[in-house]
């Protein structure tokens, strides 16, 4: 291993980054004062139905194309009939008014879910019909729902027409939009959790048979299921291609899903964290099929091969080497995992060498995201904390249900530092945190994060205006899908530092984030080049882009 001094000698640009090192990351909750007054209700019962402790989805999207990121939260449903009649169970859409203010626009939007049957779990955002606005897909215990954005602030339920309800099994978890065949429209990938029905499992009792001790069952009790891939037919309908695409053959207990082109072959690959079963890495073979290669790639499990409660995942280039890495969360004692992409098609379990293992061993996590919170040019890790089992303390006093959220700062040398304790009092708040949606909500170049929590108010974690420079790229596909999901962006700075990002909205578990590409630039004063490899295969190189602003970039025609 190179010593730091030698690293600097070999890569002089590290000096620039070292000089730009910020004093720290601090975040402050602005909700509900900023108008985001969402409070999730999970309608937990003594029956301990498993979906009650899951869910808590949140999405950051600009649903009205006004240039400001809005927020959409999913809510629980009463277990009796799983029907949303109680207003407290409604989902909520908050429109960003600018100036740090949000307003609840749910009634007009048609997204409340009123009268709908099912217990919402996850959300995926993407412009599946290429009409220029973000549509919303909701996964549920029950039939999933596709809401088409009508472009006038309202949404329509087009699930039946689109054929994406996923009726085969009731229990779904996360979903994401991607253009797996690079044909210019977004396809849909969704995970089933496990086989659980009221009829078969509603009376399952786990835990001691005494008052207060009934608890949520381990997923080990239930049967695994395959995931689902829908190909967009381009006419508002989808075809389930799971079988022919090689997705259906693998059985798991899918939780989080993230996408990236891990081998840079121009096709998006899919990573799925499974709960207590091996993870999946579906390698896109470029011919409409995938091959599940998690074992040989080294990401099916941690190095010891032990099964963990895989929860949220993200799939981004953590070490700025041009190859996406993987980071996922699990429960206390298991350690969050970091797999470094070795550029050879294989990954190394660098959980402990990165120090993530050391810092995370005591914590449980749900949704997560690679996000450069201090704009120093290195993506940090954000985790929504909490255990799954709300009475876990009864069984293991060393564990706790509610955890704080965590921030692991990327030190730029393959290691992280746990800066959570210094990130402000709001980062110390214990909660049953679940969803994570990140983005630049106020246009100041610093990334804010909305975090949902069960049976409590969501947080809107504001990130103060950055001391470091930044740039936001809003990509619009023409030949490629309009959201440009899957586009790979390479940014080169005068110092030589190169960063890589790709467009995706999926992160963690149940969650969706800003589709714009964000780069922290440290103290660099300019951008040398930006190279975009669009999903269509077109490569576009831009130079002399200004810093500390957003650029809207359209895929060149022809």
């Amino acid at each position: 291993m190179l010593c730091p001094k030698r690293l600097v000698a070999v890569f002089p640009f590290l000096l620039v980054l070292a000089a730009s090192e910020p004093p720290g990351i601090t975040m402050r909750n602005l909700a509900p004062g900023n108008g985001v007054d969402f409070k999730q209700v999970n309608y937990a019962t003594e029956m301990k139905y498993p979906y009650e402790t899951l869910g808590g989805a949140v999405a950051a999207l600009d649903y009205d194309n006004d240039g400001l990121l809005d927020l959409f939260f999913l809510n629980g449903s009463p277990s009796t009939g799983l029907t949303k009649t109680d207003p407290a169970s409604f989902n909520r859409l908050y429109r960003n008014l600018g100036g740090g203010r949000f307003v609840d626009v749910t009634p007009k939007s048609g997204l409340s879910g009123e009268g709908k049957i099912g217990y919402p779990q996850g959300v995926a955002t993407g412009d599946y019909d290429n009409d220029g606005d973000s549509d919303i897909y909701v996964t549920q215990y029950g039939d999933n729902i596709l809401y088409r954005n009508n472009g006038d602030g309202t949404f329509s339920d087009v699930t039946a027409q689109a054929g994406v309800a996923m009726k085969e099994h009731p229990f779904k978890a996360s979903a994401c939009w991607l253009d797996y065949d690079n044909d210019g429209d977004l396809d849909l990938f969704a995970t089933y959790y496990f086989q659980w029905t009221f009829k078969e499992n509603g009376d399952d009792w786990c835990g001691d048979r005494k008052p207060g001790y009934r608890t949520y069952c381990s997923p080990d009790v239930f049967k695994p299921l395959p995931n689902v891939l829908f190909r967009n037919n381009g006419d508002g309908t989808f075809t389930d291609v799971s079988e022919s695409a090689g997705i259906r053959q693998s059985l798991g207990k899918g939780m989080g899903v993230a996408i990236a082109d891990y081998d840079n072959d121009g096709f998006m690959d899919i990573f799925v964290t499974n709960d207590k079963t091996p993870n999946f890495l579906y390698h896109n073979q470029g011919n409409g099929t995938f091959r599940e290669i998690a074992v040989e790639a080294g990401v099916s499990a941690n190095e010891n091969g032990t099964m963990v409660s895989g929860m949220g995942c993200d799939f981004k280039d953590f070490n700025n080497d041009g190859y996406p890495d993987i980071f996922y969360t699990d429960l206390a004692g298991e350690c969050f995992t970091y797999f470094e992409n070795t550029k050879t098609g294989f990954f190394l379990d660098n959980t402990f060498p990165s120090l993530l293992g050391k810092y995370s061993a005591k914590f449980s996590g749900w949704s997560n995201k690679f996000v450069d919170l201090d704009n120093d040019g290195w993506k940090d890790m954000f985790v929504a904390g909490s255990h799954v089992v709300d009475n876990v303390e009864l069984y293991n006093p060393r564990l706790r249900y509610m955890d704080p959220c965590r921030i692991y700062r990327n030190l730029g040398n393959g290691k992280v530092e746990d800066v959570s304790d210094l990130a402000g009092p709001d980062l110390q708040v214990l909660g049953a945190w679940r969803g994570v949606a990140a983005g630049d909500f106020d246009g100041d170049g610093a990334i804010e994060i909305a975090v949902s929590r069960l049976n409590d108010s969501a947080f809107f974690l504001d990130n103060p205006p950055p001391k470091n420079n930044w740039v936001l790229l809003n990509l619009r596909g023409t030949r490629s899908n309009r959201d440009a999901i899957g586009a790979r962006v390479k940014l080169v700075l005068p110092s030589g530092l190169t960063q890589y990002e790709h467009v995706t909205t999926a992160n963690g578990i149940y969650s969706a984030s800003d589709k714009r590409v964000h780069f922290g630039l440290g103290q660099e004063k300019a951008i040398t080049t930006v190279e975009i490899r669009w999903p269509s295969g077109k490569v576009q190189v831009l130079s002399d882009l200004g810093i500390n602003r957003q650029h809207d970039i359209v895929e060149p025609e022809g």
Partner: protein
Amino acid sequence: MLRILILISALLVAEIPVAAQSAADLTRQGVVAYQAGDLVTAIAKLREAQKLSPNDSNIRLYLGLMLYQQDPQNLEAQELLESVADRVSENSEVQIKLLDSYLATGNKAKTDRQLSRLQPLVDRDEALGFQVIYLLIRYGRSDDAREHIGKLGARIAPGTDAGPQAETGRKDSRLGELYFVRGILAASENRKEDALKNLQLADRHEFPPRDSHHMVMLADSLYRIEEFRLAWQAYEEYLKHNPSDVEARMRLGLSHYSLGVLEAAQAAFEQVRAADPLFPQVHYYLGEVFFLKNDLDGAEKSLQQELRNDPKCGPCMAKLARVFYQKGDNEQAEEYLGRARQLSPDWPETHLVSGLLANRKGRYEEAIKELEKVVEQLPDFPTGHLQLSIAYARAGQAEKSRQHRETYNRLLEAQRHSVASGIRDERKPR
């Protein structure tokens, strides 16, 4: 110890030779020291007394018993007890200790002779018969134990072989103990089904009593046949009445550890460590627990402590190599691995870490060679198959990779079934 104390005190009161007053004084002082729990002083006093009165049979008896208590394998104790054995031929306590001494020193001829000598006593005393059987089982004299059990069975439940047909529905502790010795004999021979059947029959007769020392024999037997969940319950029951039995607590910890109940295992090992920091392997197993809990710093600390206690601990070296490997410190991992290779070249973890390091460095053929040894030694170890599958895949041997991936998945599935049934049967949460 209490029994020896009573025995010595009783003998002392019975007769002290008048002709050797000074030796008698020393003997009394020795007994007082013994009663105060100071065995070393007691032995020293008795030795002085014996110098003054070398042929005094009482002094020889007391000294023999004390030396025996200190170490059942002590040949001097054996000789002293032998020298007075005829004089106390009816004393079953002394005779059984002499038998223990012969068994402990592996003297077959003397053991056989002593068994013959004991037979008349055993014929009159069933409790002594059971004591003989326990000793024979403990020292692996299964055939002798079986013979004695047969004789005892013929007296306690004649004509029935003491099977379920001997059941009358009422509790009978003699019958219970008969099943019990059969059960622990079967366990000692790894006849699991037979052991469980007899131990369950014994339990119907409420044998062993929960507060008896037999509980630890029950626990040890269950541990031996890998019924860790039952063993854990038995050890816990036993330790309620014998909280200072460090060995039993260690095995309680090992039972938890074998079941993957790491918090409880850690608590038990920590209690052992507190009671006896030099207890063999306690730091090693604490290191294992910390490792499994992903506390690599804790694991390193414990393993280093075990190495201080036992510098030749090869498995400690191998585990430390794995700790450093996991931390990404290949250099330290290699260093400890080198020492592990010297001390325990064929220890599975030595091969595992060799394979892991080779895999990490892209030396897949070498990794395959090492990991094949791991799965040969530990065919049910999922990690070995996973890493082997990775190595084969990366070496371009897809079919071999697939085979080991399937084995890995099958082993995980088996573990899941075990956990799943655990959740339903034992009602444990996630």
